[in-house]
Structures are given as structure tokens and as C-alpha cells.
């Protein structure tokens, strides 16, 4: 690790520590705030809502919906399914603005604002002190009870946030629920980088040409040179066309050139490419010619004699290709 990176990490840790302290202090204030009463249920416990619920859940217990069976049953009258306790005080579709804020809201919002945007419920524990009868109207009261973290989880780093709701009928507590969620920072992309689709057109790399591609990977435009007579040649090959020597080496070109000839390709489609594109023969001052695309200008602006310089384009995770861009004369 370099000193500079160490410095950046240290700064990030300090920032996280400051956030953790701020969040913990907020959580403590919310715990001290105690129980905050919310809005009473919009409707009292009623048979139509029970019927919708038992119908959807598939619960055939007659003590919830059949007045005669209920009269003969253990409760002596219709009662609401205990697991419906939260349903009576749900906010509805468009009634959200009327809700009383709870001590939990500020903590969840602070986590959201600091990148802990993910949420997943982990625990729901309900205790039923007694069953609710028709006509009772519940009032929820929320208490913030706990914050723990940060913890590393499979979903990412996060905090467990726990709160408690007690439902009252009048002054009598009838049910209680502990609810815990994990608020997490969704894993960053860097940890699992998406693989770019491989570029479909790959150069043939062999013993004659590998020096060229090694150069490209380093940002060098290498031209083959005969080890005996010194003549430059491109494309690379095993034998010098001038002196027939098999001895070879290379030089690094300046990377400047001029368009010697070109075509604009419109059709047919080429995999991995968008048409139209320019294919040019570029003449180097070193005396050889290379084929390559001309980028960063309209095909109509390309002309013979146009000054260009080499550039390198990352085509996918592995392949880099040399190409040409206009150069100020």
C-alpha cells in the first residue's frame, strides 16, 4: 500500500467513525424518547376486513367470520385473527401524509442518507395479550429499542435496527410486536466488477507478431526491423524481403502518420462495430504503412494526407487495439 492510499483509507475510517458516533447518539436519544403514540386505526375491527383477510390467507377458522359458530366457541363472539393485529393500523395507499412520525423514522432516514439504502426485515415477533372483538379501535405506540452494528453481512455492511409497537384498545395493551430490520450499504460494484462482453474481432497473435501486441499493451507502436540490413517492415514476417535474413528486431515508432488511403465502411454490419467507420492505410514517417481505424472525427472529414497520431483503445477486459485520431498539422 502506498502512503497516499493509506492516507485516503485513514480519512474514510475517520468519516465512518464520525457517522457511527452520530448515529449511535441519535439512537440513544430515540430510545430515551420512549413510546410515541401513533394515529388510531382508520376503522374499528370489522367483519368485512376480517373476511377479506381470511379469504386471501385461506384461513377457514369459523370463529373469525361465522357469528353462530363464534357464539358457541371459546370466545363467545367473533374475534379478529390475532396475526391481523398490524393490519388495522396500516397507513393505506394515500393516507401516508397524515401519519404521526415515529422514533424509528429519523434513524432509518439517517441511514438512508449515508448510503445504507438497502433494507431487509429479519425478525418479527408478535405477542397477543388477548384477541380483539368487533368494534374495538386500536392505537399503535412505537418505541425505538435498539441499534447494533456496523456488521458485515452477506448483503453488505449494515446496522440492525429494532423497534417495538404496542397496540392499545383504550388504555389496555392488547398486542405487542418486535420488528427488526437490517439497513445495509448494498455491495459496491468494485467488489464484483461486471465483465465486459469480449470484443468479437481478435487479432492473430503468433511468434511473428507477438512483439507488436506486447508493444500495444505498453502503449508502444513497434515496427519490425531486419537485424542484418536494418530495413523496417510491416506487417511483420519471418524473413526480410530485402536481404532474406531471418534475423529480426524492432524499433518504436513516434506514433505520428498521415492517411495514405482510406475507405468508409457502411455495409455489411461488422460484429462489435457501429457503421459507418473509417479504415485507413496510415503512412508513418519511418517509411512503413499500417492499417487502422480513424476515430474522433466524422468519416466525411477524413482525407488523403490527413495528419493522424496513434491512440490505444481498450476493447474489452484483455484486448487493446491501436487506432488513429486526427492530429493538428
Amino acid at each position, binding site marked *: 500500500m502506498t502512503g497516499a492510499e493509506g492516507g485516503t483509507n485513514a480519512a474514510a475510517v475517520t468519516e465512518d467513525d464520525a457517522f457511527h458516533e452520530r448515529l449511535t447518539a441519535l439512537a440513544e436519544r430515540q430510545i430515551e424518547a420512549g413510546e410515541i403514540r401513533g394515529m388510531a386505526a382508520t376503522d374499528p375491527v370489522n367483519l368485512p376486513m376480517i373476511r*377479506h383477510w381470511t*379469504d386471501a390467507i385461506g384461513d377457514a377458522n369459523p370463529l373469525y367470520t361465522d357469528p353462530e359458530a363464534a357464539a358457541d*366457541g371459546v370466545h363467545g363472539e367473533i374475534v379478529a385473527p*390475532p396475526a391481523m393485529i398490524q393490519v388495522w393500523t396500516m397507513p*393505506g395507499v394515500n393516507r401516508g401524509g397524515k401519519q404521526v412520525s415515529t422514533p424509528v423514522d429519523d434513524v432509518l432516514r439517517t441511514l438512508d442518507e449515508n448510503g445504507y439504502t438497502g433494507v431487509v426485515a429479519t*425478525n418479527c415477533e408478535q405477542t397477543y395479550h388477548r384477541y380483539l372483538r368487533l368494534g374495538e379501535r386500536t392505537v399503535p405506540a412505537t418505541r425505538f429499542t435498539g441499534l447494533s452494528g456496523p456488521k458485515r453481512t452477506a448483503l453488505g455492511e449494515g446496522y440492525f435496527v429494532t423497534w417495538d409497537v404496542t397496540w392499545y384498545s383504550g388504555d389496555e395493551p392488547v398486542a405487542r410486536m418486535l420488528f427488526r430490520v437490517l439497513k445495509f450499504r448494498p455491495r459496491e460494484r468494485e467488489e464484483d466488477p461486471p465483465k465486459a462482453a469480449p470484443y468479437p474481432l481478435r487479432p492473430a497473435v503468433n511468434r511473428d507478431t507477438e512483439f507488436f501486441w506486447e508493444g500495444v499493451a505498453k502503449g508502444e507502436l513497434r515496427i519490425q526491423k531486419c537485424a542484418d540490413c536494418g530495413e523496417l517492415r510491416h506487417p511483420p514476417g519471418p524473413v526480410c524481403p530485402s536481404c532474406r535474413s531471418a534475423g529480426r528486431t524492432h524499433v518504436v515508432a513516434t506514433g505520428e502518420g498521415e492517411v495514405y488511403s482510406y475507405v468508409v465502411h457502411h455495409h455489411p454490419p461488422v460484429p462489435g462495430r457501429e457503421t459507418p467507420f473509417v479504415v485507413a492505410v496510415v503512412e508513418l514517417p519511418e517509411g512503413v504503412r499500417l492499417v487502422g481505424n480513424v476515430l474522433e472525427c466524422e468519416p466525411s472529414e477524413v482525407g488523403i494526407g490527413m495528419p493522424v497520431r496513434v491512440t490505444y483503445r481498450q476493447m474489452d477486459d484483455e484486448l487493446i487495439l491501436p487506432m488513429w485520431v486526427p492530429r493538428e498539422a
Partner: protein
Amino acid sequence: MRTLTDDEVEIGTVLPDLAIDLSPTLIVSTALATMDFTSVHHDVEGARAQGSKDIFLNILTTMGLVERYVTDWAGPEAILRGINVRLGAPAYAGDKLTFTGAVVAREDDGFVVEVRGRVSLGDHASGTVRLVLPRR
């Protein structure tokens, strides 16, 4: 529908399995019946935009299904004292939710039933239900 009596149940009693096909209709109708209008429970596009592969069962319904699973077995006169659920894998539309359970303890005047609700991704819900049965 008869309710089991206290002496008919013992630690180790196994509940019959309950398999529920999670059709989109079930997911949506239970979300509405539980007054939970969060988009991930009725809107496929909304669910996908939030990184889910489909709409999925809401927690209020999970609690309701756990309750139903136990009272389907115990009978209508069983009194539930509490449901304690650990939530796990999401229950997506198109999947199947299978409940299994067994009586694991006697507590005060009632029983503790351990319940697991599995989907293809693993345990959707696991936990305990406390209930009291009538005395003979």
C-alpha cells in the same frame, strides 16, 4: 372442525405439512387484504426496479400463514399467545411455500410449536408459535 385438547398433544408431535402455491393472485390479494400497498408486493416492474426478480409475499401475510398453519392443525379453539418469526429468503410469485412443524416444548399452560416455511431459495420463515389448547 374439532380442536385438539391439551392431553392429545405431546412434545414431538409432528404437524402435517402445508404446501401453498405462491400464485401472483395470492401474493397480490394477501398484500391488499393486509393493507400493504408497497409496490414490491403487487407491481412486477416496481419489484424488478428494486432488485427483486418478481413480486414477493409481504411479512404480514407470512405471519398470517404461520398462524393458519398452526390453527389448521390445532383447531379453531386454540388460543395463540404469540408468533416469533425469523425472516429469510423471499417468497417469490411462482414459488411454493411449504410449512413443516413440530411441538417442541411445554410452556406455562400451553405449547411451543416450531415452524419452518421453506421456498426454493431456502427458509422463508422459521420460528415458533405459542398456543394454548382447551383442557378435556
